[in-house]
Each structure stands twice: as structure tokens, then as C-alpha cells.
């Protein structure tokens, strides 16, 4: 029968433990709120708080990037130049038609390999062996991205940007579809009037079409924003440790052998906290979109408008 050491958790740690408050040096002697204050400030919990920031930064970068991809895709799909039109329409159709998870799982590894392969061709042009050996993907050491010798944080930032790029491509296709429809919804009379005033196509596009398009695009784009917020846990598939990953990790049953803060299966509490966080976030977004919508409605001849 195995015996357990309960005096001190067995550990191979070399770093000193993070101790926030003075009374946290002996957790076994604490209870109630003071135990909780020590428990919630361990190094492991800090990762949870940092991941909240990571998710917010991801959203802040991905939303404009997805909008940019969407704008590009929509204008391409409306173009008079057939190859560009085909490119735009196939981008929208393919990315919307394939399950997102397939893109996230495939793209991240494929993009990573594509970048490394390009660097490999440039930096190690004298490499004679094939890049794919059996199952393995091997490039010369100087071509690896990030380099093996770079610290872990570089790898994590790189993984983060791969995630941003993949999210932007996927959500960009949906945004492109929304913007495509919104561009077509602008009353044709407006464009004809602009043409009658002597504006060329470019001027009509930027001065008349785009400002009016936002009103029609807003419901679809606000929808996408909500979905994007809730899709952030997919970051875990891309190797970035997000809120849901840490909530799951921290909520696991913690045995006294491996931690100074043993506890049962607390996943319910952690996921409830996540629920509150996401609901709060989406509620705030809804209010913001409402205000934006009311501003854009001014002067428009729609049911909600005031013209």
C-alpha cells in the first residue's frame, strides 16, 4: 500500500515559489478567506490572470485584422476584373464552407511549415536532403521559426501571432460575406447620383458607398464579434494557453502530494467565473454596438432611421 508524504509536497522545482502575502508561507495552517487569498495568488493562478489579458489583446488585434481581410475579400468579390472576383468569391466560399476547427488545426501547422520552408530555401540553398523525411518535416537549424535557441516567450508570442493570423483569415471570410451584402444593400440611387455628379468609381466607392454601407454591415459584424469572443477558447487548439485552458487546469482535483493547496474538483466554480466573465463582456459589447447603431442610423431612410 502506498504511503503519502503530506508534510511537504514532492517537487522538482528550482524556482522559488511566488508568495504574495507574508502569511502565505505555510498554507497548511490557514483556512477560510486567508487560505483563499493565498490560493488565488499562487504563480499558477497568475497564469490565469495573464491569460485574460492575452485573450483581450488577441481580440483587440484580431478584430481589425479580420475586418481588413473582410474588406479586401468583399471588394475583390465585387470587382470587375474576373480573376480578382474569382479569388474573392472562392476565399469567401471555401473558408466559410470548411469547418473552422479544420482550419485551426491544419492552418497553424501548415502556415508554420510554409514560413519555415521559405526561410529554408533562402537560407540553406545548399541543403540536399528533402524537407519531408518519412513523417518528419526537417529544415536546417537556421531556418526554424522561431529558432530553437530562442527563449520560450518568443515561441509563445510566435504561436500567438499564428493564432491571430488564422483567426483573422477565418473570421475575415465571414466578414467579407457580411460586407459584400452590405455593399450591395446601399440604395443604387445613391451611387447613380454620385455618378451624375461626376465622381469616378473610386470616389463613389470611398465617399458614398463605404460610409453608408456600415449601417447595413453592423448587425452582421456585431454578430461576428460576439462569435469571435466566444471562439477564443479555440486558442487552446493552437497551443496558446487561454482562459478556458487555465480554468480547466486549475479546477482539477489537486492532491496534497503535488501541491500546497489541495482541493477537490472545483471546475464548476472556475467555469462559473468564466461564465460571468463572458456574459459581462458580451453584454458590454452589445451596449456599445447599440450606441454605434443609433449613431449610424441618423439620416438614413430605414425603419429605425429618422429621415
Amino acid at each position, binding site marked *: 500500500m*502506498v504511503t*503519502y508524504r503530506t508534510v511537504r*509536497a*514532492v*517537487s*522538482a*522545482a528550482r*524556482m522559488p*515559489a*511566488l508568495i504574495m502575502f507574508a502569511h502565505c508561507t505555510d498554507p497548511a495552517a490557514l483556512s477560510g478567506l486567508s487560505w483563499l487569498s493565498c490560493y488565488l495568488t*499562487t*504563480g*499558477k493562478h*497568475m*497564469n490565469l490572470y495573464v491569460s485574460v489579458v492575452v485573450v483581450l489583446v488577441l481580440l483587440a488585434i484580431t478584430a481589425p485584422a479580420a475586418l481588413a481581410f473582410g474588406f479586401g475579400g468583399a471588394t475583390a468579390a465585387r470587382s470587375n476584373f474576373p480573376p480578382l472576383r474569382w479569388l474573392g468569391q472562392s476565399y469567401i466560399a471555401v473558408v466559410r464552407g470548411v469547418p473552422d476547427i479544420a482550419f485551426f*488545426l491544419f492552418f497553424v*501547422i501548415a502556415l*508554420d*511549415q510554409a514560413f*519555415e520552408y521559405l526561410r529554408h530555401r533562402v537560407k540553406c540553398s545548399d541543403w540536399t536532403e528533402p524537407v519531408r*523525411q*518519412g*513523417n*518528419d*518535416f*526537417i*529544415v*536546417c*537549424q537556421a531556418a*526554424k521559426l522561431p529558432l*530553437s*535557441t530562442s*527563449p*520560450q516567450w518568443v*515561441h509563445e508570442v510566435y504561436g500567438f501571432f499564428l493564432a491571430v493570423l488564422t483567426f483573422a483569415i477565418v473570421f475575415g471570410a465571414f466578414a467579407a460575406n457580411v460586407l459584400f451584402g452590405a455593399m450591395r444593400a446601399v440604395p443604387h440611387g445613391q451611387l447613380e447620383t454620385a455618378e451624375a455628379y461626376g465622381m469616378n468609381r473610386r470616389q463613389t466607392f470611398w465617399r458614398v458607398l463605404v460610409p453608408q454601407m456600415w449601417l447595413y454591415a453592423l448587425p452582421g459584424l456585431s454578430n461576428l464579434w460576439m462569435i469571435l469572443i466566444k471562439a477564443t477558447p479555440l486558442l*487552446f*487548439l493552437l*497551443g496558446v*494557453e487561454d482562459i478556458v485552458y487555465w480554468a*480547466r*487546469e486549475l479546477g*482539477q*482535483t489537486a*492532491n496534497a*502530494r*503535488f*501541491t*500546497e*493547496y489541495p482541493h*477537490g*474538483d472545483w*471546475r464548476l466554480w472556475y467555469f462559473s467565473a468564466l461564465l460571468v466573465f463572458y456574459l459581462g463582456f458580451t453584454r458590454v459589447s452589445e451596449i456599445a454596438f447599440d450606441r454605434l447603431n443609433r449613431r449610424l442610423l441618423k439620416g438614413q431612410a430605414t425603419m429605425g432611421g429618422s429621415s
Partner: protein
Amino acid sequence: MKKLLIATTALAFSAGLAMAQDVVRMGTEGAYPPWNFINDNGDVDGFERELGDELCARANLNCEWVTNDWDSIIPNLVSGNYDTIIAGMSVTDERDEVIDFTQAYTPPDPSSFLAASADVDVENGVVAAQTATIQAAFIAEKGWKLVEFATPEETVAAVRNGEADAVLADTSYLAPFADEDGLVMLERTEMIGGGVGMGIRESDGDLRARFDAAIQSMKDDGTLNAMIMKWEVASTW
């Protein structure tokens, strides 16, 4: 003849360059105590952390630790995101087709059943296991009812809430759960798998040889057995 000589020298140089890469990235799961887990400080800890650090010291390598979830641990190794898998991965023929293993550093760990009561009939009940493990394959081969989960924690939770009658996993992982919340470890054990080894890319024969030598030296001077006993992960050599 001259071309052959030049080619071999060039190859030797490039092999030498490969060896000059000192940083080896060790991939682990981080969710399977006592083998590997994340400690209170947020660092990778456990038997394999200590073992890995010792092996790297003996093989004169700079090692960095990386965590990755279990499902994509092999694809990411093959794709080059890290250089080894040291995550309680048993040596199996199926895995050997895709990657190479060093010699086993623990003998085959028996797998046990953890159930809500001692008189559960596992052959006719529902057994939980983690996806893509040898235990899941074992249950599937036997033709019993299997329910799979992505993490080991969820398999135990399934038994607690009645979704499964028992969970089949490494004895060392289940031991801390026994006798808590009314869960009991059944008498019956199964010997599955061929010992736990480090996973290495098939093209990285040199790295594999270095780790093999380090593991052998640890077996020879008894430090491996001492480490196994300290963490209570398996039987000793």
C-alpha cells in the same frame, strides 16, 4: 571518388552543425501527476521533469520545457515544434510507426481500475479512459464499452458522477484518488504496453542515441531506481 569525399565531408560538417544546436525542447503534457504536472508556481514538475533535467545534464544538452495537450503531442513533435516527448508515453508498435522511442525508462506500469464500489463488473459496464492511450486501445480490443475523454481528470470525474462504472489508467496516476470520495481501486490489474520511453523524431537518430546513453547510465548507477521510488511512478528495474 573526389566527389564522394567532398560530399561526405559536407555531410559530416552539417551533422556537426546539427550537434552544435544545444537547446533541446522537451515536450510534455503537464496534466498527469506524478509523471508530469504543473506545480503551484506554474512550472512543469513531476518525475519526468526531474528525470528530463538529469538526462539533459548527463547528455550535455540545454533543455527547455514545453507543454502541449495530449491529442496533438505527436503531430507537433513530427512538425518540429519541440524535439522530444517525455509525457508518460508508453512504447507501442502503433506509435513506433510514426516516431522513434528511446529505451524504456520505467518498466511497464500496471493499469488499474478505479470504481465507485468494489463489486463493479468492468467487463459488462462502461469503462472510461483518456483518448489515444494504451488503456483506451485495450478496452476497445476487448470489446467492452468504452467512453473516452480528452484529459485524465475528466475520466475520473466521469466515475464520480456515474457516467462511467470504472476508469482504467496507470496505477500510479489513480493511486492518489483511491479511498477519496468513496472511490475504490479494484483488485484486478492489467499489464498493458511496453514500458514508458521518450519519443523522438525518426530522423533524429543522433539525439536518440545520446538520450539512450544517458538513460543507460542512470540505470547502471541506480539513480533511476531511486527517482522512481521517490515519485512512486512504477516498479523499479
